[in-house]
């Protein structure tokens, strides 16, 4: 891999117009990545999913060079119907379309020559990989007191013209005072067997509201890693919803720093997996000041040969008195080959807090099935109804009605 990555990196440097300083920085990140390589199960965070092995098994050798000199045609059929929305379209890792038709252009700033600053002091090797290979990344700023009228949908698509086996994406968002953003991430893949590495950074100022919905629904053979870093000031609210069911492997990491008083974070997730799929969600909520809140609800329905993992950590600093932190993960195992792993973690240094976590896993309740069957449903229908109710619980947590309905339609949930 090392040789391949180095030649590809040189190729990219030659064909792109990076400044010398950028190249230096990128080289530094590349070396950092090469030092540690892809994470293995020896790392605590990757205990349940050995990425290095997964990549080896599913993709084999990765390659990193993509020719971004010619434009890709945007396929309109991928757009969500029945929902007026703003768009950012990524094709094979390159932004092909940015469309904010519904918004006041003075209130939104899109910056694409944004220089990346080395901020995240992290030992995450995928972050280094991302920094070494991201081609261009955008910073979107929502100005003071502005709420986007329509949601923003970010389309992550790939097509068959892709020449590499790895895509790195990065987006920065700043939500200034009293602003709000509804953000939907939609994944559409034509190309298969790629490793897709996505980093988002959100900076929420006072009273800002962020709603982020990540929808990975369409079946594909890709390996996806997505990292959200959310910084929150006073009174800000972040809501993250993850629907994880399309990719072959997927890991979502959500790191949330509640730095301002009365800020709150919500993380909800649904996994519906089948046939060899393996998905993971890892959330780290850092309560750093007084009067912050976090709620998490994660549910999995696991079919044949599938595996899901949830690692959730609530950290409460000694300053963060009056913290509320709740966490609940549940899983239904439908087949003898399905597997559920969880590590719900609490790390608490303040005494006036209310924190709890719960985790439960098991098969569908036979008594409930019997009850439904005695009322005329057949076995399959009863099962579906129970699963439906199980998942609906999480979808109901979505605070935006429009998007809630969209999600319900997407996964075919009935009320």
């Amino acid at each position, binding site marked *: 891999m090392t040789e391949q990555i180095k030649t590809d990196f040189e190729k990219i440097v030659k064909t792109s117009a990076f400044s010398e300083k950028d190249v230096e920085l990128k080289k530094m990140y590349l070396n950092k990545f090469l030092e540690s390589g892809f994470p293995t199960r020896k790392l605590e965070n990757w205990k349940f999913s050995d990425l290095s092995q997964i990549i080896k098994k599913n993709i084999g050798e990765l390659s990193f060079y993509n020719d971004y000199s010619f434009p890709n045609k945007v396929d309109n059929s991928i757009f969500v119907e029945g929902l007026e929305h703003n768009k950012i379209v990524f094709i094979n890792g390159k932004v092909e379309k940015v469309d904010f038709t519904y918004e006041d252009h003075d209130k939104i700033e899109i910056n694409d020559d944004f220089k990346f600053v080395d901020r995240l002091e992290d030992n995450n090797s995928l972050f280094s990989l991302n920094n070494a290979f991201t081609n261009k990344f955008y910073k979107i700023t929502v100005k003071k007191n502005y709420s986007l009228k329509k949601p923003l949908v970010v389309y992550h698509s790939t097509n068959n013209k892709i020449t590499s086996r790895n895509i790195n994406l990065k987006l920065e968002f700043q939500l200034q005072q009293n602003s709000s953003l509804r953000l939907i991430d939609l994944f559409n893949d034509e190309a298969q067997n790629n490793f897709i590495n996505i980093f988002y950074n959100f900076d929420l100022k006072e009273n800002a509201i962020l709603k982020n919905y990540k929808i990975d629904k369409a079946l594909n053979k890709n390996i996806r890693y997505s990292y959200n870093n959310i910084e929150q000031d006073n009174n800000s609210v972040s809501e993250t919803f993850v629907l994880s069911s399309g990719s072959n492997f997927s890991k979502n990491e959500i790191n949330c720093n509640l730095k301002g008083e009365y800020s709150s974070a919500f993380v909800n997730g649904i996994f519906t997996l089948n046939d060899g799929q393996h998905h993971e969600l890892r959330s780290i909520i850092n309560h750093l000041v007084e009067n912050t809140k976090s709620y998490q609800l994660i549910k999995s329905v696991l079919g044949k040969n599938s595996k899901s993992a949830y690692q959730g950590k609530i950290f409460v600093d000694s300053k963060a008195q009056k913290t509320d932190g709740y966490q609940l993960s549940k899983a239904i195992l439908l087949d*003898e080959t399905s597997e559920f792993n969880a590590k719900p973690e609490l790390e*608490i*240094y303040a005494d006036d807090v209310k924190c709890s976590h719960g985790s*439960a896993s098991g098969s569908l309740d036979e008594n409930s099935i019997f009850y439904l069957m005695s009322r005329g449903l057949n076995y399959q229908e009863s099962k579906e109804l129970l699963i439906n109710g199980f998942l609906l619980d999480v979808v109901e947590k979505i605070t935006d009605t429009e998007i809630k309905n969209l999600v319900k339609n997407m996964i075919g949930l009935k009320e």
Partner: protein
Amino acid sequence: MDKREKDIEKLKDYKYGFSTDIENIRAPKGLNEDVIKFISNIKNEPQWMLDFRLKAFERFKQLKEPNWQKPKYPKIDYQDLYYYSAPKSMKDKPKSLDELDPKLLETYKKLGIPLQEQARLNGIAVDAVFDSVSVATTFKDELTKQGIIFCSMSEAIQKHPDLVKKYLGTVIPTTDHFFATLNSAVFTDGSFVYIPEGIKCPMELSTYFRINASETGQFERTLIIADKGSYVSYLEGCTAPMRDENQLHAANVELIALDDAEIKYSTVQNWYPGDENGKGGIYNFVTKRGLCKGKNSKISWTQVETGSAITWKYPSCILKGDNSIGEFYSIAITNNHQKADTGTKMIHLGKNTKSKIISKGISAGLSDMTYRGLVDINSKAKNSSNYTQCDSLLMGNKCGAHTVPYIKNKNFDSNIAHEATTSKISEEQLHYCQQRGLNPEEAVGLIVNGFCKEVLQQLPMEFAVEAQKLVGISLEGSVG
């Protein structure tokens, strides 16, 4: 306050803080093959035992000290420890208690272990371990009548080599982790219990451990075997004298329950926790593991951990036999600079296996407490279930309470439920108690005892009283 008063004051802090002056026989300092041969030789062990030790030592040399635990400690120089020390009077073993070194007996008296009278009154057979060698074993006759073997490990190696050979290292093999392997190589003594088929042990078996002789790591090895259809309840209680240097204690405890057998293992651990500045104290790095080998077997761990500078242990159950049951009840209290990283592992291998974990953690002062547990349900463990509850109570905002459970479910027939909460003593509860005339300390004691009740109930009578007092003593000075 004059000096004398100060000294007395100091001693008060730790009830059992004294050490006895007895000349020790020591192995040369350091860890190497010769020291292991020395230990084996002085204990007059057969060749297979020496081989067992050397095999473990071979493996130990390749192992790295683990570093994933939450409480960090200064590096231990394993070459700077004495691996064997025995009271001198051991040379010619006494035949009865009267022959014991009077100084030894004096120590027991101070400790509150009245070897002769109280043991009989309480119906407990006491196998007191002074430093590394068992000195006296009482009630042997009564137990022998039933065919129960309860003796020191050294004696068992001499008298019951077949049993020891058959079971030693089957639950904690010589190829285990760093500290367990170290123990396998250099263990000095411990208890050995064998309950024959169909026998219900008529009394609670008990061992009091006591660490003496400075700079001596204690390496106990306990092996308890409950044959088919038998039952035994074993108590382990610990106190240690005051000492400035950190002392390592890496014991191994192996439990084996065959078909329909039940083992109940209770611990009250009150070793020297270091002074209020975090100086000194015992490192309690113990490996405890039980194997439910047979069908319908049951192993139950109960622990009250109030002492030690660092407690790092996970009493575990391997539920191999079908329908076997594993239980873990724990109270861990840390105060001042104490640190604890404790919990359990429940490994479900057999069908219809059940496990229950109740863990109560209380941290006060500048202490840090972690519950770390694993529930692993194997794909073959059909229809198994686990219930876990771990609650933490925090007193003050300078301490920490952490919960790190690992949950692995590979079987769709099985259920796992896990609950954890962290909170503080509510103002209302305190107010209510104080209103009724309790002072704040009493009020906290009462509330904490209520918080721990589920676990305290599991302790045998004799222990429950002691444990309840300990809970109160451990938290002294943490309110206000």
